[in-house]
């Protein structure tokens, strides 16, 4: 589904990604771990098409199509979803209205009519229930005054609504207490299927107790320095990142 070849990316002339190679197939869950500043979030942003980052070498290919010239919204229309570490507050636009706009813009891009209001409402209700989101919450302004947990749950709600092919969860576990973590993770697990894929970016292992990865990759200094199965995450939890860094130097 996603193929990343020798990806180099810079911001303000400073190289952050220094040759990433990664292949994610449909039905798989990949975890990307690594110390702060290693390039995890940058990788997520580059896949989603953030213009601030300049891709200097390599390519990101989604279902055989090079994404090089695609704007962020076009990538979204093609099925990429990025759950933000710090979701933005949009006063005056309710969660429901925001979803209507997002869904209908995606449909428009695919040449479809607006989703009928009753279908939309039913869908919203269904997904909100799945994530144990109160109905009152849906009429609040997007992310405005939301707690850290509410913001993250709302990100997963948006993911559930947009049904992406590839979901990238950037530090979705930060700011979540254990109950919220469980709800968010169970939401992600319910959305998982053989046709879509998930990339979980995290600093800590604990989210991976709930979203079990098929592969774990460790990024250090802009490169994937180690890949393995889910046991690699446990090893990292136990030993920290230093042994990886040392290994990388050797």
């Amino acid at each position, binding site marked *: 589904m996603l193929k990343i070849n020798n990806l180099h990316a810079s911001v303000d002339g400073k190289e952050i990604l220094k040759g990433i190679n990664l292949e994610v197939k449909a039905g798989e869950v990949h975890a990307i771990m690594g110390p702060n500043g290693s390039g995890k979030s940058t990788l997520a942003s580059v896949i989603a098409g953030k213009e601030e980052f300049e891709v200097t070498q390599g390519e990101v290919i989604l279902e055989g199509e090079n994404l090089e010239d695609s704007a962020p919204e076009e990538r979204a229309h093609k099925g990429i*979803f990025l759950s933000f570490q710090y979701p933005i507050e949009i006063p005056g636009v309710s969660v429901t209205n925001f979803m209507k706009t997002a869904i209908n813009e995606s449909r428009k891009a695919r040449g479809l009519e607006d989703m009928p209001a009753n279908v939309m409402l039913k869908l919203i209700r269904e997904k909100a229930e799945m994530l144990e989101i109160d109905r009152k919450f849906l009429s609040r302004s997007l992310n405005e005054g939301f707690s850290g947990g509410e913001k993250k749950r709302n990100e997963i709600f948006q993911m559930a609504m947009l049904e992406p092919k590839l979901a990238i969860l950037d530090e979705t576990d930060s700011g979540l207490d254990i109950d919220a973590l469980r709800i968010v993770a169970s939401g992600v697990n319910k959305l998982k299927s053989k046709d879509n894929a998930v990339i979980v970016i995290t600093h800590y292992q604990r989210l991976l107790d709930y979203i079990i990865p098929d592969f774990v990759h460790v990024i250090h200094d802009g490169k994937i320095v180690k890949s393995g199965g889910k046991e690699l995450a446990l090893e990292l939890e136990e030993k920290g990142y230093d042994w990886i860094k040392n290994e990388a130097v050797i």
Partner: protein
Amino acid sequence: MDLKDKLISSFMAFENNVDIENPVHNVRVEAMKNFEMKGFPSKKEEGWKYTSLNALQKTDFSIFPKQVNTLEYKDVKEYFIHEIDTYKLVFIDGVYSSNLSETTHDGVDICLMSSALNKPMYKQIIDVYFNKIASQDESLTTLNTAFSREGAYIYIPKNKMPKKPIEILHFATGNEASIMLQPRNLVIVEENAEVQIMERHQSLTANEVLTNSVTEIFAAKNAIVDYYKIQNDAAEASLIDNTYINQKDKSVVNVHTFSFGGKLTRNNLNFFQNGEYIDSTMKGVTILGEKQHVDHHTLVHHIEPNCESHQDYKGIYDENATGVFNGKIIVEKLAQKTNAFQQNNNILISDKATINTKPQLEIFADDVKCSHGCTIGQLDEEALFYLQSRGIPKKEANALLMYAFANNVLASVRIPELKARINKLIANKLGVNLGFNL
């Protein structure tokens, strides 16, 4: 003949038509003398540095309509907040329209300035309030005073509240090639009384209109006044709005100004806090394009202790639009424990749009909290990326962010149907269908 000369000669004709035995006659004559002496303000004056009235003064405005014009409700319905029942004071080319209006004397007086100025039963109130807070030397205000004859008269006695909000609408029909209107409003809200007023000036054609309006508002102890100004006029309409507000102990006055249209708009909004524990709020949303110009001048005069003032003005300027925000706060020596906040945030969309923003604080007390901030910027890139990553194209994402930027000023609008209307106007003004009904 320039506009000043025309006004001076018109004044004589005007005086021939009004009762010169009336004490207001003397007020008018005094005011006219002042205007004759001062004339229109020029750009040399500090307060008019960025707003020129030169072009307007060269226009041959009719000072009085040549005929009485009428309008059908169905043709102008869209300009009313027609989703709700309201009292209405409607003026067509400056003349009261009884068939479009709905006045009342049921416990409160919501009627015509001309009645209040001429009928003996109002004399006592007119003597106490008329032209008492309006400036006696600001030339445009004195010009309005000289020609004061018609407008809204609203008197809410102690402990009363009108059954419904009040709409004041001024229509210009365009039957004159160009017309100058000078409405004069007087609003008196007595102790523990409350009122909600919406005011709109609307030109119905592309013919030129110049409105020079004066409103005096008196809020007695514990009174609550909500005043909403909708400025979304046609491209050839200019408005000079002079509003003077006198507040007594524990009164609350909120003025919202929505400036989305017109050629030239100047708002002179003046608050005088003559009491303690007063709350004064000024909020504004300005969205302009083309060559439109809006100049917001606010003044809050903190005279006594323990009072608050809040100002929050947001502006979005595109194309060649120009904006001015000048917020003056005076805190007198006596006015300890004053809390005065002022905020003016602007987004410039085009390289040619301009905003001049200036806080002006004169503080003579030492135990006060005064804060002010102004920003001029573009939209947040991270927020834009967030919306795009959800599939919302850049243009729509930009509009949504501007909408959000302007929207938080609306939280304090207390008439839901008005809020919905303003939301719609903002969305239209930003030129984008956001995919849902605001």
